[in-house]
């Protein structure tokens, strides 16, 4: 049998083919075909093995025939192969099985049998003591656990010696074996498999060669550590997407996109507004990364999503954090908690908003995608950025104006960020004032009008319809505006405009979602809407679809800005809330109608208007976005105006204001002229020239001013006519109309806007009163209406019908309200008449200026006028107060916030009024006067305002005189103490709950800088800083001395036993041994002492005596060892010395500067004295001086100079010294021997 390798087969060959082919030469037993495939599964090599039962001849024949032959497109290569390993294995096993010798088994069996006879079963002999020989088997021994083991004779390979190994003797080494699991029998060869059985765990998978797919993390370069957070977020989202199951993928990607967007937003703003603080900046920085990586990440995620294995990898991303992990935003949080109105808070809020707004973004983007795609932009990021801009601006605004801040949070709580956006928008559009006004109006409305609500609801529905229709347009507009703006003006301009656009968008969004929530919002929105559409229409008319969008935008912007004030004006006009509502509603209805019609129809209008108008919008936007303060001013003016003149003029003024502001913003130099011109326009009836002037300086704004101002004037004039019916004004109107013939088209356009924006009321008024005189303006309006009528009402039929119904109702309401309003107007006029009469129209005009922020525009003698206006205003104010409190209140509020002299004055006046009114209120009632009164008051306040418990003087305690003073003071502390008690109680409970000892911090947790700490010895706490002397305090000198004596006397007992020494050296040595320090000291001074000491006594003993004797055992001290004459001297000197030393101590103590330290160290002094005195007494004559002059430095005639050399010279003659030495030597020898003996004896005794 041969095994052949057949190579070079074509892929199409099957086993059967091979079998057939080789079957000719022999019997084919087994065919094995292998195909190698590459990664894609395409076969590139196939070969086979074949087992043939073949003779050699046949094999040779086969080789010649088939080898290197072509078969099915491949050249066959045949080689003899090694035997299949499986076969080999089976063969080997077979052989092994065959070889197994039977005698072996037999031997074992026989052994076992023979053992069995001896009581051994399976080499185990139970209940046998280890070491017992198995009977009958000499070389078998019972070992541990009853195991029967053979005694072995071992021979070391190197040596001849044979060792007998008895397992019973080493049985302690043996451990009991678990009953070994029978090894699984050999699996038959046919059952062998390539499969590795194993669990699902990672390792077994790896063993099988399956490796989990690797997730490559996006490599992020972090610019700053501070960016980490943001980036982390990004990456996390990415990771999340990777991990998320495939179901989630779509949503997660969306979110991811959103996330990536959000960071991108602040980027532009960061460059744009510098008021941003760190966190946002961080975000900004990070966006650089994210910008580039957004695409990358997205692609990555998409890839990863495919490869993701589901939730398996999730585990890897579960991060476990220690207890001490502190989130980075906590600072912000804490600040929030403290309600600190600071930027961080605002920022954090912004962050939140970012999230929320992201949603809206999404909505927006989803809505606008179609339009965007049309526009071929990379708009998403831009959009977002602009959105963020808006947000930022809003925020800054809010930061600036606290009002806005207040409003924003309020709404936040109620309606979250989506709502917030509108509110802030309203701030932007109408100033903060707008928001307030709205709120107030809202309050009014809600308070009073049920019908109003209904109508508002209806309106809402209408608005929704409108917004739906307008939705499609808005995004386009937005994009277009973005496009258009940059070329025409600066980046900032474009941004601003974009912002405004976004606001518009946002409003739309709101409308769709929260249209029913807020009346005010809706009102405003409706206005905006209507205006937008108005402008759109009227600009649509002028241009082709593509550009028409642009015009729309501009128009929209126009209208928005222009109309933002309108609602206010409306409010202003209608003194009663009902009026306001009705007016607004009417407006809306009209506008809506008009808008719809206009949207569809296209009339021919001048094409030149849109662009300038657009610019104007830019300017306006700038104003809105950048100058909140200016807005405030204008808002103030607007608010004040209505009181005097009624809303329309206000509207126009506002308009104007905004325009002028726009001019200001665009070019600072223009500001003054712009202002002045605007004033002129307003003041002088024949203002066309001035208008021109305005045009000239503000070329960039071009059409804006002309387009709007005339309209404003018209309105104003109309209003004025209405109000005063003065011929002059009419004339003015006419003149203005004439002058602006050239701008007539624009006029009409603007009038369109205005017509729509201004209330129906207004129009009607104008029509009714001014129709004969102002022939021009009426036609314009008529033309509008005709336009409206012309326009086909195709698309929103249903809506229209509904709207018309609504409008009819509203109109009816409006008419009613107009009448009321006219009545009120008359009243106001009457009040104003006195002041107004002399200046008539001018006076009114001047009022505007008086409230201008900057007084720089006083070139045309306006300065006197403001005063009158002020007074006027006050009057009107008072009137208003009488008539209509809510409005006036609203005004007041705004006034308070406004700046400038006039306003201050106003404010003061108001205050005075209030004072007058309230003065009585705050007077102390007679029964509460004095101390007793105060007490009574307190008593009453305890029971509240309940009349039943009204307390009078009877309730006052009679012991006033005692308590009065303290009680007054303690009234506060009473509460305090109560609270503190409560706190204590709480803490107690807390400690009970937590099972820990919670103690109230007495002084709060104060941080103490240890480096600045100054040690104050008088403070008890500062004892902690003292290094304590651990030396035990001793009661007194005497007591201590007694102790010493006792200690010293103890060795005296043994004195007799040993030696009789003339000097009680024993005692001395004992002492010396005890006090080694003293001895040492003595040794040190040995040289010096030599001179002063008597010769008979060796210096050692003397010194030791001195040291021990003098200080420690004064009672037993004997002075016989000293020189006779010196004895007394030394003693006295020693005494003196002691005293002196104490003085020195004193000096040292001053160093330590602790009085108590002195006390404690007093005893220590004693100890030190012990060492010092011997020193001094050793050289009695000289030492005192030396110690006196203990200075480290040398004087000229220092004692040490005299003494020092002496130490080097011999004081005596050499012979004397030798003699002395000899004498001393004997004693020393004696001493030595004595010691030697003593030592010896000691040794003996020990042994």
């Amino acid at each position, binding site marked *: 049998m041969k095994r052949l390798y057949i190579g070079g087969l074509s892929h199409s060959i099957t086993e059967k083919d091979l079998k057939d082919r080789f079957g000719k030469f022999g019997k084919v037993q087994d065919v094995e075909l292998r195909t190698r495939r590459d990664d894609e599964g395409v076969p590139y090599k196939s070969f086979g093995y074949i087992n043939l039962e073949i003779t050699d001849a046949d094999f040779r024949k086969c080789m010649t025939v088939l080898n290197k032959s072509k078969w099915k497109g491949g050249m066959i290569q045949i080689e003899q192969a090694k035997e299949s390993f499986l076969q080999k294995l089976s063969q080997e096993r077979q052989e092994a099985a065959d070889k197994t010798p039977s005698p072996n088994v037999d031997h074992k069996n026989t052994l076992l049998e023979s053992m069995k006879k001896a009581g051994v079963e399976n080499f185990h002999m139970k209940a046998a003591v280890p070491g017992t020989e198995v009977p009958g088997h000499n070389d078998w021994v019972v070992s541990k656990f009853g195991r029967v083991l053979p005694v072995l004779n071992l021979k070391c390979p190197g040596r001849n010696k044979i060792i007998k190994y008895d397992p019973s003797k080493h049985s302690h080494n043996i451990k009991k074996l678990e009953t070994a699991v029978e090894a699984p029998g050999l699996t038959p060869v046919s059952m062998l498999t390539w499969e590795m059985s194993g669990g699902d765990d990672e390792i077994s998978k790896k063993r099988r060669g399956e490796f989990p797919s690797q997730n490559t993390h996006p490599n992020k370069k972090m610019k700053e550590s501070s960016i980490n957070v943001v980036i982390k977020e990004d990456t996390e989202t990415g990771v999340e997407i990777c991990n998320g199951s495939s179901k989630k993928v779509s949503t997660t990607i969306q*979110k991811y996109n959103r996330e990536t967007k959000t960071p991108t937003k602040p980027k532009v703003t960061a460059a744009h507004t510098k008021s941003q603080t760190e966190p946002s900046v961080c975000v900004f920085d990070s966006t650089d990364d994210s910008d580039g990586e957004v695409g990358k990440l997205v692609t990555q995620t998409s890839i990863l999503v495919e490869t993701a294995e589901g939730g398996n990898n*999730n585990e890897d991303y*579960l991060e476990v954090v220690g*207890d001490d992990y502190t989130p*980075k935003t906590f600072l912000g*949080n*804490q600040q929030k908690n403290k309600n600190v109105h600071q930027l961080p808070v605002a920022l954090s809020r912004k962050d939140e908003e970012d999230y929320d707004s992201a949603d809206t973004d999404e909505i927006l983007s989803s809505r606008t995608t179609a339009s965007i795609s049309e526009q071929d932009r990379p708009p998403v990021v831009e959009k977002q950025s602009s959105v963020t801009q808006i947000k930022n601006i809003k925020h800054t605004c809010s930061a600036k104006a606290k009002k806005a801040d207040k409003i924003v949070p309020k709404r936040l709580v109620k309606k979250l960020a989506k709502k917030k956006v509108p509110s802030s928008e309203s701030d932007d559009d109408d100033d903060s004032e707008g928001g307030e006004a709205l709120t107030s109006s809202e309050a009014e409305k809600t308070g009073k009008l049920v019908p109003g609500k209904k109508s508002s609801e209806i309106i809402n529905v209408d608005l929704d319809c409108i917004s739906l229709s307008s939705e499609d347009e808005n995004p386009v507009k937005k994009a277009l505006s973005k496009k258009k703006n940059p070329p025409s003006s600066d980046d900032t301009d474009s941004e601003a405009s974009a912002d405004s656009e976004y606001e518009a968008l946002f409003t739309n969004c709101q409308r769709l979602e929260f249209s029913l929530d807020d009346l005010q919002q809706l009102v405003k929105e409706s206005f905006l809407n209507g205006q937008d559409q108005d402008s759109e229409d009227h600009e649509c008319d002028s241009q082709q679809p593509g550009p028409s969008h642009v015009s729309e935008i501009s128009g929209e912007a126009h209208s928005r800005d222009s109309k933002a004030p309108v609602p206010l004006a409306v409010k202003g006009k209608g003194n009663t809330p009902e009026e306001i509502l009705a007016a607004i509603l009417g407006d809306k209805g009209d506008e809506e109608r008009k808008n719809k019609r206009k949207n569809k129809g296209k009339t021919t209008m001048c094409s030149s208007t849109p662009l300038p108008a657009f610019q104007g919008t830019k300017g306006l936007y700038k104003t809105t976005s950048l100058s909140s303060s200016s807005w405030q001013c204008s808002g103030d003016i607007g608010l004040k105006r209505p009181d005097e003149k009624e809303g329309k003029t206000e509207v126009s003024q506002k308009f104007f204001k905004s325009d002028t502001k726009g001019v200001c913003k665009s070019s600072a130099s223009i500001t003054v002229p712009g202002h002045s011109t605007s004033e002129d326009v307003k003041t002088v009836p024949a203002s066309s020239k001035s208008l021109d002037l305005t045009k000239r300086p503000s070329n960039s704004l071009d059409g804006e001013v002309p387009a709007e101002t005339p309209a404003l004037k018209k309105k104003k004039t109309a209003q004025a006519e209405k109000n005063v019916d003065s011929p002059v004004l009419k004339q003015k109107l006419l003149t203005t109309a004439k002058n602006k013939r050239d701008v007539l088209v624009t006029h009409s356009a603007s009038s369109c806007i205005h017509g729509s924006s201004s209330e129906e009321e207004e129009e009607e008024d104008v029509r009714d009163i001014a129709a004969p005189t102002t022939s021009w303006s009426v036609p314009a309006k008529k033309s509008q209406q005709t336009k409206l009528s012309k326009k086909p009402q195709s698309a929103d039929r249903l809506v229209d019908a509904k709207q018309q119904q609504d409008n009819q109702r509203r109109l009816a309401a409006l008419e009613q309200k107009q009448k009321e309003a006219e009545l009120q107007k008359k009243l106001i006029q009457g009040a104003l008449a006195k002041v107004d009469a002399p200046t008539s129209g001018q006076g009114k005009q001047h009022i505007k200026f008086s409230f201008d922020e900057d007084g720089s525009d006083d070139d045309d003698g306006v300065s006197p006028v403001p005063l009158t206006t002020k007074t006027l205003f006050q009057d009107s104010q008072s009137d208003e107060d009488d008539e209509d409190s809510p409005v006036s209140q609203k005004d007041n509020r705004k006034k308070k916030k406004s700046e400038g002299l006039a306003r201050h004055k106003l404010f003061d006046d108001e205050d005075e009024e209030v004072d007058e009114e309230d003065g009585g209120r705050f007077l102390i009632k007679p029964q509460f006067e004095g101390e007793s009164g105060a007490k009574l008051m307190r008593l009453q306040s305890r029971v509240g305002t309940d009349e039943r418990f009204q307390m009078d003087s009877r309730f006052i305690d009679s012991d006033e005189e005692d308590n009065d003073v303290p009680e007054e003071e303690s009234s506060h502390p009473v509460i*305090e103490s109560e609270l503190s008690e409560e*706190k204590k109680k709480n803490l107690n409970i807390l400690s009970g709950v937590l099972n*820990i000892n919670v103690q109230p911090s007495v002084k709060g947790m104060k941080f103490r800088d240890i480096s600045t700490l100054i040690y104050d010895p008088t403070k008890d706490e500062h004892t902690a800083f003292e290094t304590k002397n651990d030396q035990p305090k001793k009661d007194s000198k005497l007591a201590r001395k007694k102790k010493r004596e006792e200690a010293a006397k103890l060795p005296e007992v043994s004195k007799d036993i040993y030696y009789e020494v003339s000097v009680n050296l024993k005692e001395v040595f004992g002492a010396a041994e005890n006090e080694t320090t003293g001895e040492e000291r003595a040794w040190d001074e040995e040289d010096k002492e030599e001179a002063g000491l008597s010769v008979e006594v060796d210096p050692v003993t003397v010194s030791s005596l001195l040291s021990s004797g003098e200080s420690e055992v004064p009672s037993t001290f004997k002075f016989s060892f000293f020189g006779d004459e010196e004895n007394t001297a030394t003693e006295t000197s020693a005494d003196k010395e002691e005293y002196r030393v104490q003085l020195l101590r004193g000096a040292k103590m001053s160093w330590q500067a602790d009085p108590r330290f002195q006390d404690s160290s007093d005893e220590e002094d004693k100890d030190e004295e012990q060492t010092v005195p011997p020193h001094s007494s050793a050289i009695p004559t000289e030492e005192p001086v030396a110690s006196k002059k203990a200075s480290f430095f040398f004087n000229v005639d220092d004692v040490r100079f005299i003494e020092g050399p002496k130490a080097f010279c011999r004081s005596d003659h050499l012979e004397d010294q030798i003699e002395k030495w000899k004498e001393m030597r004997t004693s020393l020898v004696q001493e030595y021997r004595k010691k030697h003996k003593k030592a010896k004896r000691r040794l003996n005794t020990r042994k």
Partner: protein
Amino acid sequence: MRPLTDDETRTMFEKLSKYIGENIKLLVDRPDGTYCFRLHNDRVYYISERILKISTNISHDKLVSVGTCFGKFTKTLKFRLHITALDYLAPYAKFKVWVKPGQEQSFLYGNHVLKSGLGRITENTAQYQGVVVYSMSDVPLGFGVAAKSTQECRRVDPMSIVVFHQADIGEFIRAEDTLT
């Protein structure tokens, strides 16, 4: 409005201690002023002394809310924390859970936190330990109770609940009418 009784205080502290442990002390004993807990309409308010004084001007039936509402006592006299307390829980929280951005929304809609949404967790979190839930950007989102200990969290499958939802800032909208 009245101070809490001892029992009430105890129940409240027990509840609070699940989240902030002994840090309650920092709430009770504040260095920046005196703060106290007051019961009003079954709700517990955390008020500074200053506000407390001011609030005395308002009759109790007119008073809607004062200070920060920590929660309310249920009819069964158990204490239930409200989301408004988050401002005070978050800075002192002992155990925290960070939720991945994908599950943020889900959590804010009142759902439990699943393992798949768990981004990060404090180590040694025991089962049924009160935890404060954060977004990955460390914005506190709410709080809940750990359904699994940290160790268990590592093992469980992705769809199992890790944190039981108790309150989230979404309630500011959802429960607008009841929150004070």
